[in-house]
């Protein structure tokens, strides 16, 4: 449970997941912001106006998944690093996960990485497909990782294999 240990329970997650149909239609955002806090940059970041305007800045973000095309601009604009983009149909067996990443060294394209879930536990391996770190992102890199479809909904972070001490 989030307030107990920072890991959302399945029930908590239910509230922020796009529907399975929407997932299968193509790239889409998942905004894991489940607490009312005073924050609104996501709304201003979205070129598609997929985030509903905030009436009160403390409201949780509400997303119109029909407007979202998974463009990923919001990822680096979220101060809480709580936004991810999922492409369920990336390939036959793999889904594509895009995460914000503010660590050094950055992974490289084609690099194999350990995939972690929301509790930091290893749940498989993934392959880095793209590393984006433009000036606009202001030092929050966006890493795209191809992961087995089965773990796409649980995968939320990566650990590099090179130089990894594998504790954690």
């Amino acid at each position: 449970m989030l307030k107990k240990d920072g890991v959302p329970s399945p029930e908590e997650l239910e509230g922020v997941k796009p529907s399975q149909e929407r997932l299968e239609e193509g790239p889409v955002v998942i905004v894991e912001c489940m607490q009312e806090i005073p924050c609104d940059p996501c709304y201003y970041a979205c070129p598609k106006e997929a985030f509903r305007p905030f009436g009160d800045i403390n409201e949780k973000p509400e997303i119109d998944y029909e407007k979202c095309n998974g463009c990923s601009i919001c990822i680096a604009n979220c101060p809480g690093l709580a936004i991810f983009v999922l492409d369920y149909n990336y390939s036959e067996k793999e889904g594509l996960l895009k995460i914000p990443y503010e660590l050094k060294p950055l992974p490289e394209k084609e690099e194999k990485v350990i995939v972690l879930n929301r509790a930091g536990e290893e749940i498989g391996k993934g392959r880095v497909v793209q590393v984006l770190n433009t000036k606009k992102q202001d030092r929050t890199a966006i890493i795209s990782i191809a992961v087995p479809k089965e773990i796409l909904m649980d995968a939320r972070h990566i650990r590099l294999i090179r130089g990894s001490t594998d504790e954690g």
Partner: protein
Amino acid sequence: MRQTDLAIIGAGPAGLAAALEAATAGAKVILLERDEWLGGQLVKQTHQFFGSKKEFAGMRGIDIATHFSEQIEKNKDIEVFTGATALGYYEDGVLTAAYSGRMLKIKPKTMLVASGAMEKMIPFNNNDLPGVYGAGAVQTLMNVYGVAPGKRVLMVGAGNIGLIVSYQLMQAGIEVEAIIEGSSQVGGYWVHASKIRRMGVPILTNHTILKAIGEEKVEGALITEIDENWKPLEGTEREVSVDNICLAVGLSPLAELLWQAGCQMEFSPQLGGYVPVRDEDLETSQEGIYIAGDVAGIEEATSAILEGQLAGISAARKMGFAVEDKKIEQIKENLKSLRAGPVGEHIRQGLAQVER
């Protein structure tokens, strides 16, 4: 003796915002800052800020500090003294400060205290051992001076500061053994907790530290699970191997000058300790003495900026400078909406108690 319209003590977000607003309204400002740089807490904060995009949300604290400093330096009506520690405020309205080995004397028409806060300490065995640091010190060492505070850290406290500094430690390549938290809940924003959790750092609620282990410096810590009354649960004690224990157990307002100036003070647990009674324009019970930021109640940077604006502009108005009422109303409105949510509840409660 220097004369000025407004003397501001502290150049954190509150003091900086106040200086700009007051100067824009036409006031002459003297800004005193103990550190050698402007920005207060902001200069250590590498993360993007929350709050409203209309203010600075989405910008990193370090960049907000630069943004303000540049504007302040350009402004001819603001005289800045860095490395200047305000020492005392006397009955005749004179403010003194220690500044490069000498004493500055200032007689301002109005004064704003924006001195921020200091860190709280908690009792445990050996809490004076080298290697037990406040979270602010850890941040300063690693983010301002680029020196690693240790190799492996135990973080005490899962409020926003404990969570954010843990994240910053990981960014600096330093391991975090765990974050321990005495209460049964994460006090900081859940998104901060989640981002450190998925990196593999455990957050142990209902846990506390009993002892720092080591002779000359920290070599470990003894931690334990506790019940709702903070009583250790037998058999749950364990040792962790760390060379740094970082305390992020809360802040309390740095209000000495306000006590000295005779401002009416009141204890407010929600606001972090003793804070001055104030009116809705942030004037204290002493006429012409204003407050803004953490010294007025521990909150965050966006509210510190807004309070700074409000106090700066109110002080200017008090001295007869032309100020648009609309502008003041707008700032108050922004503050109100920032505090309107559930995480602002304790602030609303605290303010209800000290606002007259």
